[in-house]
């Protein structure tokens, strides 16, 4: 069964450093998302991406964040200068069609980011 994969599973970084989280969405999916989950809290939407551009973003997704689809398979989230409060699980998700079409989203296993 096709699945979303994410690397690395755990990333430890120093405050102020840049990190890149990587995702490989399901191959025939067109919509890609990043979410985060701070320990013990809700899953929160960060950004959605379609047709090589951001389609929506939340207020969490400020200038420190960026996303890219550098080739036909990878989808990355970059945090330019990490802060302690960026420590969280980051989930990539993909869907075949947009949310207006009521399609389910398939989530990856997540990357645990720890900022020291």
């Amino acid at each position, binding site marked *: 069964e096709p699945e979303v994969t994410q690397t690395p599973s755990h990333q430890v970084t120093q405050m102020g450093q840049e990190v890149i989280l990587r995702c490989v969405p399901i191959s025939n999916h067109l919509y890609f*998302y990043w979410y985060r989950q701070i320990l013990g809290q809700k*899953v*929160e939407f960060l950004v959605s991406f379609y047709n090589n551009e951001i389609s929506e973003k939340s207020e969490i997704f400020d200038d420190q964040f960026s996303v890219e689809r550098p080739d036909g398979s990878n989808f990355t989230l970059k945090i330019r200068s990490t802060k302690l409060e960026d420590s969280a699980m980051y989930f990539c998700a993909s869907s075949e069609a947009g949310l207006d079409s009521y399609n389910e*989203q398939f989530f990856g296993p*997540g990357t645990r980011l720890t900022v020291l």
Partner: protein
Amino acid sequence: SQKIEQNSEALNIQEGKTATLTCNYTNYSPAYLQWYRQDPGRGPVFLLLIRENEKEKRKERLKVTFDTTLKQSLFHITASQPADSATYLCATDSGNTPLVFGKGTRLSVIA
């Protein structure tokens, strides 16, 4: 903006019983509600979606209802098993951002 509330943080039930989890939304009636399962340290896994014009949806031992009068969705697991132990998340659209999740209800099925 839309808010999703899952008022029970945790629910313990005996194996074989029916588990019922509640999801309430606070503002406008959403076009749909989705239910996901999340195991510790893992990503959410989609279970069921119910549209606002559907009263009930079933999938194997799972059943979801949608009551626009009460602004509520109920999620039922019949004949529950220890393997059903997980956190169950309710989610919907908020009108100006994609999926908004509730905090989840942690279900423990005791053998």
